């Protein structure tokens, strides 16, 4: 709890302390000061008294007033008047909008059942439990999906794997659970940090402030970096493992091979707290480092020396990221990397990988309200049939690829009649095989988009568009992970409403019993475990004792939302080595909350599900080794999605300051490769796979492997024409014209978004006559065989 007041007057400004966690934004929840004058947001600064970010802010947050005042913001509800794609709208009132939506929802519920309505959001950000609640409790649908993200390939493979292997989630220890942070006597700075498959100083993924890594480097931590690209962290690392994209599992198994065979593992932890070690030991024999070097392109000596360095450092942590999820071996890779910190004794120890708990457990994310969906309907969730992790309640989203196929298959196993799209810019951003998704979305009868700006998604597909508020325009909180932080509403913009307000108002119309709260703060209080007397029925389905996983229901012990606002943030109590103290299991015995109480190096449940219980490398479906014929035609490995300082996914493209720093989409090519192709720095080039092509600007990078290129994602151009065929130019530079859907890993998780094949050639007037926007919106896209999910 903060010792400082939450609001004060400073000259002509009112200053309010709050948390940023909304679009446009990121996965952090930084403390900041909002400066307002005459009810307008004028300035933003970091909050020096918030231990999370300690006063620092990134360039995007510093520039956010530009977003609030953007002339391109949505101002009021809109109803489509032209054809989809014409970008013609009529202003309507909120009541009219709700009436139209309610009528459609009721009609679909009656004729097809609520399951035919799919709730979607983009990334798991500020509406992480709110949109799921709407989907389950108001629509009566089990289908909550992340904007057509193939294979749930953003944290969810790691989340599902961690759930079955140890039943809890891990983060690299940066003292983030202590209010006094690095000053806490229990905290230890890791000797070595292994950065795996992310560039945290830019991406800040999974509730982790990336520059904490820099803090620890300054305190003496050394780095090992696993990344195909030379990031700043890689340049500062003792060892940079520049692997071939999509071979992370093999690399982790090679390191495990070294650590186990050279007896560098922690015998005490393995014997007392792990199961399946002998099986793992046997499996890693299939990954000698010379073989792993061939698979990964990382020299054998580097793999060995890095493995030794990591294993010998006590403590050591691993900061992992998205690249692990974006391969067909998403689950297996996560399992192998998790095994690294398990067998080296770095589990939940100071300076290791620690078990993260959300502030006061006020967060059950994507499964919030699932109990409102009747059991028999839950079983019909997209993907449950083929994905045992979903079927048995170990994962909380429907399978996007299956949903896509249901739309394409004209209603098999059942039709999709409505998409609720809340701040997700699907085919402009996270939906791989974007033209395919575009085509499918057009087929859905009724689509609602809730967003900040008129997006390509809204223009192409929406029938109703609702304007959402930004961070300073909402009451909410951030609970992932610690501290529990208040997000405080201080300004309004036109007729925009907060995501919570929109969901609550619509929910009350659709299913009043499930939405008894009078105000948003009431709803927030419920989520914080308060007002049991005021709204007793609201707790009926929220938390049931027979829940498959043991997680405490959120409870702030009486602290209300309005009190939280004034306290700004509160840190929950925190302890290391929870497995020794009986803090993880329902029976309060020591151990992990798995069937045998151990970290399962060999995952028993996978055995039961007929899935390989140990990690195995699988080649990306389109690689030089899995498809040599394709490689002849497309001789470059394509990785994509590296983060930029200026943008969070498809956001921030409207902000002149961000575009000043980063005006156009860039593809990184090695100078030797570029020279062979007659490409120079700054040339527009076509990047093409067997599915489609897009245009970006070549930038030559000496440190990238000449066999690999790296392209940016999320590009659209708000300054360009919105109506089709342009759609703000979104298809012209869309790397997802090249990526795929329905190529998942063995459990339905993971997608090879970052490890495909492409070719590159210079853009000329001759070869640029038909732009991708025209090809996709007017000519039916490109002709190729679409991947299908296995029967």
């Amino acid at each position, binding site marked *: 709890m903060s010792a400082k007041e939450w609001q004060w007057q400073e000259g002509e400004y009112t200053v309010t302390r709050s948390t940023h966690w909304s679009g446009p934004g990121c996965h952090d929840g930084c403390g900041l000061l909002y400066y307002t004058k005459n009810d307008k947001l004028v*300035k933003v600064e970091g909050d020096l008294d918030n231990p999370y970010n300690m006063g*620092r*802010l*990134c*360039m995007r947050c510093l520039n956010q007033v530009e977003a609030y005042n953007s002339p391109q913001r949505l101002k009021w509800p809109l109803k489509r008047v032209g054809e989809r794609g014409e970008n013609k709208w009529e202003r309507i009132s909120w009541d009219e909008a709700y009436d139209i939506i309610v009528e459609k929802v009721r009609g679909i519920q009656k004729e097809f059942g609520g399951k035919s309505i799919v709730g979607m959001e983009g990334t798991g950000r500020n509406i992480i439990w709110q949109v799921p609640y709407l989907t389950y409790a108001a629509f009566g649908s089990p289908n909550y999906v992340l904007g057509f993200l193939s294979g749930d390939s953003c944290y969810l493979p790691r989340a599902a794997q961690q759930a079955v292997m140890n039943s809890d989630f891990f983060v690299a220890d940066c003292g983030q659970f202590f209010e006094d942070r690095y000053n806490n006597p229990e905290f230890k700075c890791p000797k070595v940090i292994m950065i795996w498959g992310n560039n945290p100083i830019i991406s800040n993924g999974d509730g982790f402030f990336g*520059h904490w890594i*820099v803090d620890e480097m300054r305190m003496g931590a050394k780095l090992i970096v696993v990344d195909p690209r030379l990031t700043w962290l890689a340049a500062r690392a003792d060892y940079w493992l520049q692997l071939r994209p999509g071979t992370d599992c093999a690399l982790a198994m090679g390191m495990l091979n070294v650590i186990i065979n050279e007896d560098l593992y922690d015998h005490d932890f393995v014997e007392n707290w792990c199961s399946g070690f002998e099986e793992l030991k046997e499996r890693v024999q299939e990954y000698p480092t010379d073989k792993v070097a061939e698979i990964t392109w990382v020299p054998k000596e580097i793999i060995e020396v890095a493995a030794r360095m990591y294993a010998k450092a006590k403590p050591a942590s691993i900061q992992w990221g998205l690249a692990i999820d974006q391969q067909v071996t998403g689950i297996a890779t996560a399992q192998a990397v998790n095994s690294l910190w398990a067998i080296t004794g770095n589990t939940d120890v100071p300076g290791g990988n620690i078990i993260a708990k959300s502030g006061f457990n006020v967060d059950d994310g994507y499964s919030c309200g699932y109990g409102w969906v009747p059991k028999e309907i839950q079983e019909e969730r997209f993907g449950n049939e083929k994905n045992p992790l979903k079927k048995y309640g170990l994962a909380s989203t429907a399978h996007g690829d299956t949903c896509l196929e249901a739309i394409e298959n004209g209603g098999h196993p059942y039709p999709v009649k409505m998409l609720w799209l809340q701040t997700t810019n699907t085919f402009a951003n996270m939906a791989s095989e974007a033209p395919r998704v575009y085509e499918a979305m057009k087929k859905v009868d009724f689509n609602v988009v809730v967003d900040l700006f008129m997006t390509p998604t809204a223009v192409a597909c929406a029938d109703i568009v609702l304007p959402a508020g930004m961070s300073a325009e909402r009451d909410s909180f951030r609970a992932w992970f610690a501290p529990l932080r208040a997000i405080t509403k201080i300004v309004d913009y036109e007729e925009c409403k907060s995501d919570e307000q929109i969901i609550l108002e619509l929910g009350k119309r659709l299913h009043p019993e499930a939405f008894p709260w009078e105000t948003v703060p009431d709803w927030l209080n419920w989520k914080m475990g308060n007002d049991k007397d005021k709204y007793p029925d609201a707790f009926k389905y929220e938390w049931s004792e027979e829940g498959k996983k043991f997680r405490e229901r959120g409870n702030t012990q009486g602290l209300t939302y309005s009190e939280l606002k004034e306290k700004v943030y509160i840190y929950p109590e925190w302890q290391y080595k929870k497995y020794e103290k009986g803090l993880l299991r329902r029976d309060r015995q020591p151990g992990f909350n798995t069937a045998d109480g151990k970290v399962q190096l060999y995952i028993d449940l996978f055995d039961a599900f007929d899935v390989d219980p140990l990690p195995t490398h699988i080649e990306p479906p389109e690689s030089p080794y899995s498809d040599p014929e394709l490689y002849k035609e497309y001789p470059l490995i394509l990785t994509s999605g590296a983060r930029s300082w200026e943008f969070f996914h498809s956001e921030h493209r409207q902000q002149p300051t961000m575009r*000043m*720093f980063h005006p156009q989409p860039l593809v990184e090519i090695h100078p030797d490769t570029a020279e062979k192709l007659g490409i120079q720095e700054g040339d527009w080039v076509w990047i093409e796979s067997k599915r489609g092509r897009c245009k970006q600007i070549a930038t030559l990078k000496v440190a990238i492997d000449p066999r690999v290129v790296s392209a940016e994602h999320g590009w659209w151009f708000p300054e360009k024409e919105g109506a089709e065929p342009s759609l703000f130019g979104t298809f012209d530079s869309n790397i997802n014209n090249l990526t795929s859907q329905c190529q998942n890993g063995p459990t339905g998780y993971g997608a090879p978004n970052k490890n495909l094949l492409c070719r590159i050639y210079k853009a000329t007037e001759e070869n640029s006559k038909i732009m991708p926007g025209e090809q996709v919106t007017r000519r039916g896209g490109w002709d190729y065989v679409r991947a299908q999910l296995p029967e």
Partner: protein
Amino acid sequence: MSELNCQNKENKGKAAAFPQAREGLERLLKSEETSGNGLLIDYEYCTGCHACEVACIKELNLGPNQYGIKLLEDGPRKMANGKWDLNYVPFPTSLCDLCKERTAEGKIPSCVQHCQSLVMSYGPVKELAEKMARKPKMVLFTPK
């Protein structure tokens, strides 16, 4: 001039035998009033995140392509030992006034506060110079 001095046989090229010419320049240099304060930057840990640049643009309300502090990049360059050299350092431009208004109110300059690596310090040059002596790869700026 200096090359000639260095080649002087008497001191075997180690030091100037005739330093007067250079000393004359030193002696006649004009002196100017300073605020006495500067910016110390540990560029070993500058990640190139641009936070200082945008913090400054907002503080000084600068228009397009104007900077009060500008990030400079060196590298990446492969070194003989196989490692990569990649360095960033933000450079205060002529527009930098060390956040005169903020510091008058007892705040620290906006770039210093928001630097994501927390590698920028503001204060009396003497104190910064002492700090600088304790760690390599630091640079001290004294904007006007």
